[in-house]
């Protein structure tokens, strides 16, 4: 039984909760179908999973309940009794803007042969890039899901989702690295460029040396590096508490960053992995600008929290097991479609080109600083002089935001808290670079 044809059961489920004394109730249901293929040196695995689950939230004077399970939602109780505190569910939403489902949602899932051929190709191309590199494991997953929500306040929402992920783990000598990418449709994975990036990472990690001293330097940061920094700074972007933190960082004019620093979250991002008409509570999603050309505008806030700007659907619920919580859909530093990443390297002249991170980003909120454990290349006169690893790039938060001079067009996302955080390649006027 599909989610869409499950409406009668859904109504009965909500009704049964109200019948047991709850004052408001909501049913969320998700079905998904996925295929995965795993390549290892001496083993190939093909898996197919059909997942089907539901979750209800209900609340009343005595408290609240979140109950979830597999299969069809029960049409009647008894339900577990509530416990304090109560929760508040969203009231009926205003009419959502029109939604057009992306056409690639209908593309068929990868067949077993296609998936294994793609993974074999990654392994072969990696060896072609570097004869001593070896792919340890490659996992390709391709899935489609249907989500539906119904509440006692009259909210009814449903939509589909489509995501494919490719996780690669490779080694060169005693150095190993991982790379994860995602797209709506796996046939978009560019095997050649992935193998090249993976080989580059391995060479840097294998041959790189730590910087000898600490110096301020201009640097080009890839989207992955900056996205990880934006992600680590997540308390700034969401409520509760985000607005007051941002205000403390901004100057008297409300300026937080350079003219190139525009931060948005867009739940309906064209081509976005998580693009959807509504969020995990059935509230309409949309595009909101948090920082515009360096000027503070608002935070990402749901209807539950106060703050500047209209509330937006930003409650993430990745699966039926998960408790809904505020989070990004596609939170990103906005790219500039006119600028290529290579032009930033030309502009850099001398400095550093940081490709990735060797560990988690560290944020010192008391000092207002961010530390990035980076690897990449030292650049002299526009050319790579030597690979760098075990390095730490540091900046004050405002120094990082105001130091972003140019942004490129190559937006890259990382996954975060059930959503995506992204950034393009950027040129930063200076960061402090030294050994880790």
């Amino acid at each position: 039984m599909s989610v869409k044809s499950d409406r009668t059961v859904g109504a009965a489920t909500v009704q049964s909760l109200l019948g047991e004394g709850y004052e408001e109730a909501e049913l969320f249901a998700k079905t998904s179908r996925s295929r995965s293929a795993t390549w290892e040196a001496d083993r190939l695995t093909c898996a197919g999973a059909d997942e089907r689950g539901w979750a209800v939230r209900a609340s009343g004077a005595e408290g609240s309940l979140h109950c979830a399970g597999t299969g069809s939602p029960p049409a009647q109780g008894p339900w577990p009794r509530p416990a304090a505190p109560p929760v508040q569910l969203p009231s009926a939403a205003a009419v959502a803007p029109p939604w057009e489902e992306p056409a690639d949602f209908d593309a068929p899932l990868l067949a077993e042969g296609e998936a294994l051929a793609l993974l074999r190709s990654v392994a072969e191309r990696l060896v072609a890039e570097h004869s001593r590199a070896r792919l340890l494991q490659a996992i390709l997953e391709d899935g489609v899901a249907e989500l539906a929500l119904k509440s006692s306040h009259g909210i009814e929402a449903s939509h589909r989702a489509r995501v494919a992920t490719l996780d690669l783990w490779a080694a060169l000598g005693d150095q190993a690295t991982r790379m994860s990418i995602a797209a709506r449709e796996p046939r978009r994975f560019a095997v050649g460029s992935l193998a090249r990036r993976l080989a580059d990472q391995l060479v840097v990690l294998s041959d790189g040396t730590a910087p000898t001293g600490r110096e301020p330097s201009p640097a080009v940061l890839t989207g992955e590096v900056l996205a990880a920094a934006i992600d680590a700074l997540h308390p700034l972007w969401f409520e509760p508490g985000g607005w007051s933190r941002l205000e403390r960082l901004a100057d008297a004019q409300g300026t937080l960053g350079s003219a190139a620093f525009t931060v948005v979250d867009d739940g309906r991002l064209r081509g976005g992995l998580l693009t959807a008409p509504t969020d995990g509570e059935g509230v309409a999603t949309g595009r909101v600008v948090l920082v515009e050309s360096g000027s503070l505008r608002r935070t990402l806030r749901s209807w539950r929290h106060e703050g500047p700007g209209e509330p937006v659907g930003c409650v993430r619920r990745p699966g039926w097991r998960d408790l809904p919580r505020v989070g990004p859909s596609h939170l990103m530093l906005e790219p500039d479609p006119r600028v290529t990443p290579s032009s930033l390297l030309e502009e850099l002249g001398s400095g550093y080109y940081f490709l990735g991170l060797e560990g988690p980003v560290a944020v010192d909120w008391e000092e207002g600083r961010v530390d990035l454990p980076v690897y990449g290349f030292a650049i002299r006169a526009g050319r790579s002089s030597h690979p760098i690893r075990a390095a730490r790039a540091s900046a004050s938060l405002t120094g990082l935001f105001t130091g972003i001079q140019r942004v490129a067009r190559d937006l890259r996302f990382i996954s975060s808290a059930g959503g995506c955080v992204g950034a393009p390649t950027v040129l930063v006027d200076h960061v402090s670079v030294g050994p880790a």
Partner: protein
Amino acid sequence: MAFPGFDCARVARALGLLCTEAEDLADAYFERIELTETPGAQAGPGLVVRREEGFALRLVRGGRVWLVSRDEIGDDVVARAFRQVARSLPPAAPSFRGIEPGPWPELEDADALLGLHGRVEHELRQLRAGFPFRLRARRHRREAVVVSPRLQPDPQVETFYSVEADVPWGRWGGLMSDLDEAPLRIASALAELFRARDASPPQPVRTVVVLGPAAAAVFLHEAAAHTLEADTLALTGRPSSAIGVRLGSEILDVLDDPARAPGGVRRTSDDEGMPVTRRWLLRAGVVEQPIADRTWADRAGLQPGAGRRSQRHRLPVPRSSHLELLPGTFSFDELQAGATGGLLVQEVDRGRLDPFSGRFVLDAASARRIGPGGLGERLRPVRLSGSVVELLSAINGIGSQVRSGGAGWCAKGGDRLPVWATAAALRLEGIQVGPP
């Protein structure tokens, strides 16, 4: 029981039809999971209940694996999954009548979980401390039935508790087989975090370290068990070539024995239906038997019985369940007396092993300096580091009193599994200690 009257013989006969080649391995894994949780969040919900059931069918043929998994259990859905995993359909379609789980049992322990916060507050008062904290407590119950053409082990049932407590100075988490001693254990850990809140990290130095039984459990899981898992060993060579290699001190005997785990999580068979064994990982510091599941046992000539599944949608992986450190001869006071000037670490947050270099780090939220007259200043946070061989060889004292309990959640390779240990305190000489 979740599966009363479950017709395992019928499933076994059907799986026999899947095995059309001599070395084929086929099995079915049925599971039912119940989670009861008090999230402890201000915004609610007050109580979370999750009940899920489903199954997976697996066929292994040479270097190929096929896995089909579903979120329902019933004759139709099992029959469809059978057709999907079969490489060639048998002349007569097998029947799966009688494959229905029983009704869900009454919810247990919700009141005990809801009352835990108050009991911890009470214990804190006894310890002359009082501060706000957030407590997230869970009861986990899993019932699993594994069927293969030749094996029909008893259903395995596990019930245990997990707790996460947050204070402004840090977080403490633990696994428990029952809630009897939970309030005092949680309160003691939180009080220690409170008392160490203004402490500074140690200067980098080589020194003697005493690990309390809880810290020793995490250390041995990360350093000995992960190192000796067949999939880890295979990253750098043949897993069987580790047998006979000296990895640690001559006084170190470490076993994996799921049958002697704390009550509630004791096992007679693993998640592949193989009888569990009392597996000597290290005998007098020398590797005797690495950890293997069925496929790694076949591939590497090892002993199976340590296959664990985090859930039906994932394949079994070779993992330890319950580590056992054979006790030594030292009282805790004697261990401490031989460590003057060094550090005492009672609780460990996490450990990390680099399988390629053998480099290992262990992070603790706090430690105490051991002075001539007893325990001295607090230090926080603290990192212990070195190679696995260096750390395990540095053990020069093992306590005589063992403690059984949770060693924490293991998340290697994306499979989140609870791990248990019976361990005594350890004294390690000349260990690198410093800030993270």
